[in-house]
């Protein structure tokens, strides 16, 4: 029953299409000879072709405007190809009246051009010189426009055109159209129309207020997103630190350099993949485990080789890790050069996503938010669910009893440190997509990350999560008022005052670190 109904509907649909298109095609073909007629007939034909809205007319009209349209010996009308017209063909000439008609018709036809960029340009052109004549055209184009961003421009143009109409009803419809959008341009159009239409002032003002409200909401949403994005970057950079600093009580001043190395691993993996076409699309997914493994290995080596000897002497650890960071940074600078290295983001990370309500978010930052949450969940799972996590928690709570129970505490220390360092490498992969990959990539984030950990509470992953997003959001909310630099300064001062109240951060935790 149902399939047959569906079939019948489909049949009806195709029938309609078949019925409609030849009619239009006939119109189009019937009109063409008019282009070769007298100037008056030419102008009329041009206008009718423009009103027809058939994209096939665009190249012909363009050729006519450029004096490249030919009437062949057999009467066909074609655009000239190549340098010289073929035998027996004659060039069609036009006068100024036809030129004016052409400009208008081409402008209208571009609204239905298969090229999105051209449609957008046409909408913009109509928006610039708003005329009530364009209303039916815009309505027709809007009905078949697939892309949301171009639809928005067309709606704006339509609102402007309606506002320019002489009829009161059309003007009201225009105000409604513009009021329903949420662009500053619509607001300006309405404000400009207010002086000319004193009888519509009340309606215009309601519409402007509605736009203002939506714009404000959008700005708030965009600030929120930027804060979320900065917060997720901070979360990634601070998460590894929360493990090495919070869980192990080791101040790793080389953490920023681990982040930087993660970014360079991304660069290297990308360069390797460039030579192997089959791997090319997977460069970024491959860089994630590579960066984790490389930085984790460096971290493990550093713990076993150096830090192991300094447990219980946090200030000395601080100096030592600072030195390691300095050496790593300089070695990278000597190996890769001091200038920025380019990282090409994959297609699916580029571009801007327009959310409902016109909120624009850049795709790579959206991915980084998701990535940071995934890393956080993986970290939580590793600590809560795996045997390694269990041993790690045991060593943190009571090293000697854990050792008595047969846990090899030294190995757990090395693995914990490697784990924290590996997460720093993951942060580097993410940062390579939004920041310049240079040897001092990490230094820009390290102080912020320490602030996140100190603010959130040492050793608490929850504290790190909340700390990172709080600092990210507060920073982005302050920025419009205080500027980028002052916002950061204010934030640092704010944290110092906050630590007055809660010296152990938001979420104080017990453990080896808590005793210090």
């Amino acid at each position, binding site marked *: 029953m149902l399939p047959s109904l569906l079939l019948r509907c489909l049949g009806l649909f195709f029938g309609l299409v078949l019925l409609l298109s030849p009619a239009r095609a006939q119109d189009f073909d019937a009109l063409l000879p008019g282009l070769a007629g007298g100037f008056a007939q030419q102008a009329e034909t041009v206008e009718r072709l423009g009103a027809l809205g058939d994209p096939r007319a665009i190249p012909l009209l363009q050729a006519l405007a450029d004096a490249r349209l030919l009437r062949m010996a057999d009467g066909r009308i074609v655009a000239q190809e190549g340098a010289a017209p073929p035998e027996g063909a004659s060039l069609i000439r036009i006068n100024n009246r036809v030129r004016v008609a052409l400009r208008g018709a081409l402008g209208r036809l571009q609204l239905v051009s298969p090229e999105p960029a051209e449609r957008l340009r046409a909408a913009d052109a109509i928006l610039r010189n708003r005329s009530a004549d364009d209303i039916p055209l815009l309505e027709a184009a809007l009905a078949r426009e697939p892309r949301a961003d171009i639809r928005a421009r067309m709606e704006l143009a339509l609102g402007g055109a309606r506002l320019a109409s002489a009829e009161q009803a059309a003007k009201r419809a225009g105000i409604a159209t513009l009021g329903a959008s949420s662009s500053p341009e619509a607001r300006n159009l309405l404000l400009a129309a207010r002086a000319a239409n004193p009888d519509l002032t009340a309606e215009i003002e309601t519409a402007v207020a509605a736009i203002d409200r939506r714009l404000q909401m959008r700005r708030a949403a965009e600030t929120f997103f930027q804060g979320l994005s900065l917060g997720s970057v901070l979360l990634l950079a601070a998460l590894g630190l929360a493990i090495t600093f919070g869980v192990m009580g080791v101040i790793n001043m080389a953490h920023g350099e681990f982040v930087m190395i993660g970014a360079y691993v991304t660069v290297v993996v990308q360069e390797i993949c460039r030579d192997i076409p089959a791997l090319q699309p997977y460069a970024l997914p491959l860089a994630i485990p590579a960066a984790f493994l490389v930085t984790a290995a460096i971290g493990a080596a550093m713990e076993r080789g150096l830090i192991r000897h300094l447990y219980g002497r946090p200030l000395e*650890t601080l100096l030592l890790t600072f030195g390691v960071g300095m050496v790593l940074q300089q070695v990278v600078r000597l190996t890769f050069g001091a200038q920025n290295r380019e990282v090409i983001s994959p297609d699916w990370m580029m571009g801007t996503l327009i959310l409902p309500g016109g909120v624009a978010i850049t795709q790579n930052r959206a991915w980084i938010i998701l990535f940071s949450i995934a890393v956080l969940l993986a970290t939580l799972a590793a600590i809560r669910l795996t045997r390694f996590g269990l041993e790690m928690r045991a060593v943190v709570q009571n090293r000697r009893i854990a050792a008595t129970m047969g846990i090899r505490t030294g190995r757990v220390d090395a693995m914990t440190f490697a784990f924290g360092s590996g997460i720093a490498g993951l942060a580097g992969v993410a940062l390579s997509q939004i920041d310049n990959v240079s040897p001092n990539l990490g230094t820009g984030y390290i102080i912020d990350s320490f602030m996140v950990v100190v603010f959130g509470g040492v050793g608490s992953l929850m504290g790190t999560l909340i700390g990172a997003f709080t600092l990210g959001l507060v920073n982005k909310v302050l920025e419009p008022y205080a500027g980028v630099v002052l916002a950061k300064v204010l934030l640092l001062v704010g944290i110092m005052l906050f630590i007055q109240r809660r010296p152990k951060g938001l979420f104080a935790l017990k453990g080896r670190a808590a005793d210090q």
Partner: protein
Amino acid sequence: MNTRRLILLGFIAVLAALPLLNLLPEEHPLHVSDFLVSIIGKWICYAILALALDLAWGYAGILSLGHGAFFALGGYAIGMHLMRLIGPRGVYGHPVLPDFMVFLGYTELPWYWLGFDWFIFAFAMALIVPGLLAGIVGYLAFRSRITGVYLSIITQALTYALMLAFFRNDMGFGGNNGFTDFKELLGMPLNSGHTRAILFYASLVALILVFLMCGALTRTKYGRVLTAIRDAESRVRFLGYDTTRHKLFVFVLSAMIAGLAGALYVPQVGIINPSEFSPGNSIEAVVWVAFGGRGTLVGAVLGAFSVNALKTWLTSVAPDLWLIVLGCLFIAVPLLLPKGLIGLIRRRGGAKP
């Protein structure tokens, strides 16, 4: 004891002779170049900064990663005075405003520049401003018992915040170019050899005075309490000492000494800009102290001289390697030389510390 005194006096005598040898004619075999005098003049200022840091870290256990900021603030205070003395000799020739203010469209001097045309006021500010800042930060930190690495991170954040702030053009401190193009100090042209010698001696005298003062301070009962706080703060507190006040005093004093070092440094190098605030500078000073031997005043001076000598030599021979060597110093000192060079010398010499 006597041999140590003799070595110390000999060292000072050699330093004191340098500017005199510089005044000898160039073809004389004992002539010392301008470059060497200015370099060693800088090292003396660094040694004063190292003493300041050692007083706070070596004796009271306050590892400040912000002493470079106190140093830079002292330098900026004197720098403001030097800028005021340029007067209409600047590029724009404005009688009152420094060049960068004319450039940025200031019409009058900001209020916080008032008074800096007097040397005494500027010099006092070079001590008071770092002292005041250290007082506020120290009060907040010590009162809520922030110690150890937390304190280090907070002082580092402070330095970082100051650096960001001083990089701003609208702060009225010359933005990222800072102050330079100084002409004279106390009526003496800054580019003459005599002025250089006088500044050199002023720094040397300051170093000796600070050294003697720190030595006297650490030998008093107050100094003993400080060392006790470093080793076991809570026990000292339970004995009835107000450890917050003790630490605050030494922190403020240390910051003022650092400010003094900066004030002597800027006229000798002829420039001060926000990069002096960079956290790397502060932590480099920490390695001078750690390398020389923390908790010994001689060690701090020795560390400042030796690390900077190494830096000067290496940055001319193999500039790319300097940061690696410095990094290795940071790694090697805690692992191999926990008591620094002084500890090594004493162990070799068999003397008790």
